[in-house]
């Protein structure tokens, strides 16, 4: 696909920041949002102008702000990634049971999290690799089982170049029939109820054929697949 000239140019796909920027376009005014560790955390940097969202961290805070200035870290104020944070004006703090009541009770409108595998029926695997040391699922199983909107942020393929969008997950599951949308370095896809990844958008410069080649699960390709507009 690439000629010699293109080899010295950036590959036609999004980086992690690009994935986060695309996901930020999904935010709606007034939403409460839980961001997972990794790419999802970056979404907070790209909230569109004119839209107000409140970030929840499941260890027990609504209204999480940016990292503190150097010298102002507070050991009693961290996020679920155990990073020091700040609380914005209007923030609230609560216990872990209340925190998951918000999540389980669907008071939080959007969950964005990473994944190792997603199936074309919306199953997700992101907590355990057999034969490797298990660290635990943390809050991921509660989040995926209950959130109304779940967007997965991930690279389209793993380090070995294998597709992470499958007809069936091979790794132990975190949740079943729960993922609604996936934003990768190559595409935006929607999980349809009758099984299949519907291709919604291509990353800038990426061809439908590239996405087809990188997708192992059932891919539904509409006649027209627009390119993402990252603004």
């Amino acid at each position: 696909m690439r000629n010699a000239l293109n080899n010295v140019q950036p590959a036609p796909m999004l980086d992690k920041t690009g994935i986060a920027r695309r996901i930020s376009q999904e935010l709606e005014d007034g939403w409460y949002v839980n961001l997972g560790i990794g790419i999802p955390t970056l979404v907070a940097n790209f909230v569109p102008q004119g839209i107000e969202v409140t970030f929840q961290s499941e260890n027990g805070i609504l209204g999480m702000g940016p990292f503190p200035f150097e010298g102002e870290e507070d050991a009693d104020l961290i996020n679920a990634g155990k990073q020091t944070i700040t609380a914005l004006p209007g923030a609230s703090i609560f216990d872990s049971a209340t925190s998951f009541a918000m999540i389980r009770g669907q008071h939080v409108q959007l969950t964005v999290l990473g994944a190792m595998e997603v199936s074309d029926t919306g199953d997700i695997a992101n907590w355990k690799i057999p034969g490797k040391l298990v660290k635990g699922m943390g809050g991921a199983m509660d989040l995926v089982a209950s959130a109304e909107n779940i967007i997965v942020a991930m690279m389209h393929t793993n380090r070995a170049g294998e597709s992470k969008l499958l007809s069936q997950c091979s790794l132990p599951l975190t949740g079943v029939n729960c993922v609604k949308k996936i934003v990768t370095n190559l595409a935006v896809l929607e999980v349809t109820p009758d099984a299949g990844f519907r291709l919604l958008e291509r990353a800038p410069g990426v061809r439908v054929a590239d996405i087809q080649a990188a997708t192992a699960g059932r891919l539904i390709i509409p006649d027209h697949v627009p390119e993402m507009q990252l603004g």
Partner: protein
Amino acid sequence: MQKQVADARAALEGLRSGMTLMLGGFGLCGIPENCITALAESDINALTCISNNAGVDDFGLGLLLHSRQIRKMIASYVGENAEFERQMLDGSLEVDLIPQGSLAERCRAGGAGIPAFFTPAGYGTEVGEGKEVRSFDGKPHILEHALTADFALVKAWRGDTDGNLIYKGTARNFNPVMAMAGRITVAEVEELVPAGTLDPNMIHTPGVFVQRIFQGSRYEKRIEQRTTRPHAR
């Protein structure tokens, strides 16, 4: 009844080998540092510890792992701890991993007299294996049982001699629900004040849940992931 005790050693009177403990905290935030140190200095062992995390190698519950005082760990996430890995792999440490929200609710239920509840978390995964499944509004849920403990060890910011507690920041986390679920709940606080001096409107954990309380000392409050942004010029 006198709830105030002198220190962690006195507060842990009656805590014996083989017992089940709950320990508040998320990561190293809001952990009962003084009680953990007192346990590490004791010869109590074969403990079952219910805690969201297992500390790091040289702090928090990592101290009790290092001295091999824990037989079983019930937690939601146990990374960041090499000694934990060693003991789990050599089979000397039993580990039960539970979704974080289910862990919190199982503690709350234990304290609230609710023996079990249905949750969608873990359905269709290995967490749901062998558990009763019921559908509500077409959505499958699994039955999770309440948790209680012989001792719950919690950490608060301020407390009074009646056991009323106020937490600070996200150090609250699992502490209030675990305080409810201990047959004996020990609260260690940064500042202990006479009963009647805290505003009743501001109490997070009512004293009814707390049997013993003491003012801790030498809080380290270690930060696991120090993240900052540069000062604006």
